[in-house]
């Protein structure tokens, strides 16, 4: 009998864990948005009554909006605004049925533009909408800005450590590795790691950077952040908004799909840099960059700031951040965004 009770308790506990979902609030919505064959997973969290929305485009390719839906920065921003976490086509929990030829930046831009139209239809034409792109989401955001009429729907653009030109990104990553690496070696800090990176980047042929080189730079970029004392890592700032059991993206099929789309979208993004077209962006723009971002170095932020056509623009560096200042310095990050939005909402 004791054994039966034990088994029953285990089954009930298991069912409770499995059935528990993220705390829903009155201002929480999750839906699929169908566009051109894809079903895009969308989560809307935060203060809908504010009528100010931030449409957040995740990094990757192969990332998800869900990964951004949590942590201190999202708590602060959701108190003031509604945040729309969108899983781009082929990414995260987005599904649907389409061909590989539909997995492009151009199509992603059409999706983002269509979603902004949808948000205005659903939440009212009077909402103030801001577009935020992080990392690879940066090139989706700049692509949609320069290739569609989305600027008519937006109050502003926020780019956070976003890449607009992959070739330039590789060169700047090498440059930053050399600068910071030499300084770290001189400080006698993590010498083994930095010396290995310095030796490797010095032999990369900058006129012919291979795919293997790109992978190395990207991988070491994330590793380097862990080695630097200068980067802040707040302990209570996990961005995991879901448990292992109730995450909408926790499955082997999604994981393998996301790694599959990574190559396709990466190649398309490489072939379609947007930096030379940023002059077309006329809406207010804000560029937020981690000083120690080796994945998308600060030089790309400076370049984007210089090339953007907006007369109202701002560039901010985070002295203690790497590729994700929203995680490293959440208070300063949110203060900057709140300041920017308050000027243009």
């Amino acid at each position: 009998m004791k054994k039966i009770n034990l088994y029953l308790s285990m089954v009930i506990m298991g069912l409770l864990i499995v059935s528990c979902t993220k705390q829903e609030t009155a201002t929480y919505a999750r839906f699929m948005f169908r566009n051109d064959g894809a079903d895009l997973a969308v989560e809307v969290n935060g203060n809908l009554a504010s009528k100010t929305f931030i449409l957040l485009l995740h990094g990757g390719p192969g990332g998800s909006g869900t990964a951004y839906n949590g942590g201190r920065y999202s708590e602060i921003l959701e108190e003031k605004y509604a945040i729309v976490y969108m899983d781009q086509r082929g990414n995260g929990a987005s599904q649907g049925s389409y061909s590989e030829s539909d997995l492009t930046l151009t199509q992603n831009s059409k999706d983002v533009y269509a979603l902004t139209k949808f948000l205005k239809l659903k939440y009212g034409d009077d909402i103030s909408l801001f577009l935020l792109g992080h990392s690879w989401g940066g090139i989706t955001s700049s692509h949609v800005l320069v290739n569609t009429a989305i600027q008519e729907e937006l109050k502003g653009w926020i780019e956070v450590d976003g890449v607009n030109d992959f070739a330039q990104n590789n060169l700047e990553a090498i440059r930053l590795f050399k600068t910071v690496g030499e300084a770290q070696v001189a400080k006698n800090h993590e010498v083994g790691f930095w010396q290995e990176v310095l030796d490797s980047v010095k032999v990369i042929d900058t006129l012919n950077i291979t795919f293997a080189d790109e992978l190395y730079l990207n991988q070491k970029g994330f590793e380097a952040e862990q080695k630097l004392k200068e980067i802040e890592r707040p302990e209570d700032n996990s961005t995991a908004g879901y448990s292992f059991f109730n995450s909408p993206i926790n499955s082997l099929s999604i994981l393998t799909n996301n790694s599959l789309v990574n190559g396709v979208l990466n190649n398309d993004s490489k072939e379609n840099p947007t930096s030379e077209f940023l002059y077309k962006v006329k809406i207010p723009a804000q560029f937020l960059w981690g000083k120690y971002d080796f994945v998308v170095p600060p030089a790309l932020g400076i370049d984007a700031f210089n090339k953007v056509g907006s007369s109202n623009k701002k560039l901010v560096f985070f002295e203690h951040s790497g590729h994700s200042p929203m995680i490293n310095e959440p208070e300063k990050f949110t203060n900057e965004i709140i300041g920017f939005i308050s000027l243009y909402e």
Partner: protein
Amino acid sequence: MKKIFLVFLISHYYHLAFSQNEVGSPFAVSFSIYGDNAIHPGLKLGGYYDLVTKEKSKERKFTRFQEKKGNKVKRRTYYGKVSIGAYSFANNHNGWFGNIGLGYERMKMRKGWLYGADISVGYLYRDYKTDTYAIVDNEIEKILFAGSGGIVYSFSPYVGRDFSLKSNFPIKLQLKPNLQVLSYSYGFVFNGALEIEFIYHFK
């Protein structure tokens, strides 16, 4: 190449079916506790039909064991199966699936320990748990019964035990991981599931 393989498979099973031994009813039904990726809970119901069953008996090497336990008897079974099922993926979709397959099993007849594997092909429909919308003529349209689906191929090795041999309880219990390849978005991806399967074999 696919046609040659199919012709070979059919002729192989046809040949084996007509050389089948008589070992009771070939029908069985099953009930499984199913977990997509082991963590998304579901259920699965199935039917089995033994196409071929053969028993092989041989004496043990050691006389002492032979006297104590008798002959070593092993049963080999080739079977066909059909199944339907569903699972719930938290905050994403409900999965509905059906498949047909063929399998092979070997069982030791003294205690009923068994192992085997089956391959199957089927269809999985992912019925979204959330509302789905589209813009039609500049207005929001809610899409009813929205979801996406596609072909699933699966390979399932398993281990288990037939309790009917030691008691009169005609149930087989099997632990069965499913290794799947399924269509998703624009291509095929890997997936996995885990089943605890109870099989009732008709007498």
